[in-house]
């Protein structure tokens, strides 16, 4: 039953991805000034939204770990697995954002990169979570999970700064498309294509997030069993 549900979800996700691609490439109209290169937007922005969501999950997991680590170890381990899964899958999506953005920028602005507030804060966000993953990978000892949780919370503080950066400061990055004032918004056909791609990338992201969570839980269970065996030997 569980296998069937996962297969069904994966099939729906693949269908959504294909439909999203079709909408972005063939259905959405050409933008008047940027023309075809604007279609990068349909992968760039949903990836950023999903990355933010997963960093929020990592934040919740980190807070959960710090809250339960002395009282309920089983809950703390579950929270820690969600924190790691959120951070890692968030980094994957953030990497997509940092690559597709400059590809668009090269055509729209004529440059690959500029030290603009939105771009710089996004790069800092990515670096913080990469350092989180490096800490988890290479550090050892009983304090690693606690240190990682603190770093995870610290990293998540950058998410609202990234989101607000093109509202707070003058940036080269385009003004907010949604909720950015009377001139913001999208053509309805573009909005539909954008909506389908948000849904598709969210479905895909949740699929790999849950898979990453299970891999981490399995790792925790194996590590606990090995530690128990070592104690018994």
């Amino acid at each position: 039953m569980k296998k069937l549900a996962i297969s069904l979800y994966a099939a729906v996700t693949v269908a959504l991805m294909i439909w999203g691609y079709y909408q972005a490439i063939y259905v959405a109209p050409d933008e008047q000034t940027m023309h075809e290169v604007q279609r990068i937007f349909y992968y760039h922005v949903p990836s950023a939204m999903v990355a933010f969501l997963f960093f929020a999950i990592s934040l919740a997991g980190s807070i959960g770990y710090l809250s339960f680590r002395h009282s309920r170890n089983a809950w703390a381990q579950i929270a820690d697995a969600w924190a790691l899964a959120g951070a890692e899958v968030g980094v994957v999506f953030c990497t997509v954002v940092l690559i597709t953005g400059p590809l668009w920028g090269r055509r729209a602005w004529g440059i690959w990169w500029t030290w603009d507030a939105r771009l710089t804060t996004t790069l800092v966000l990515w670096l913080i979570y990469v350092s989180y993953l490096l800490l988890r990978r290479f550090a050892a000892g009983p304090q690693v999970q606690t240190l990682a949780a603190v770093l995870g919370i610290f990293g998540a503080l950058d998410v609202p700064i990234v989101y607000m950066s093109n509202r707070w400061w003058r940036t080269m990055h385009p003004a907010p498309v949604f909720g950015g004032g009377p001139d913001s918004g999208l053509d309805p056909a573009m909005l539909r294509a954008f909506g389908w791609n948000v849904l598709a990338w969210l479905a895909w992201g949740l699929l790999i997030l849950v898979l990453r969570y299970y891999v981490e839980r399995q790792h925790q269970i194996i590590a606990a069993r090995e530690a128990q065996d070592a104690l018994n030997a």
Partner: protein
Amino acid sequence: MDQTAILNHQFVVAAYVITWAIQLGYLAWLGLRWRAQKRAAERL
């Protein structure tokens, strides 16, 4: 097609291909880890 349109098209293709390469590459890496841990769990 003029040169600008060709370049625009190439950049869109590059963005979409790189996105999928990253996502599918990560999925493949996760699959390998999943399999390795399943084997490790069986050994215990």
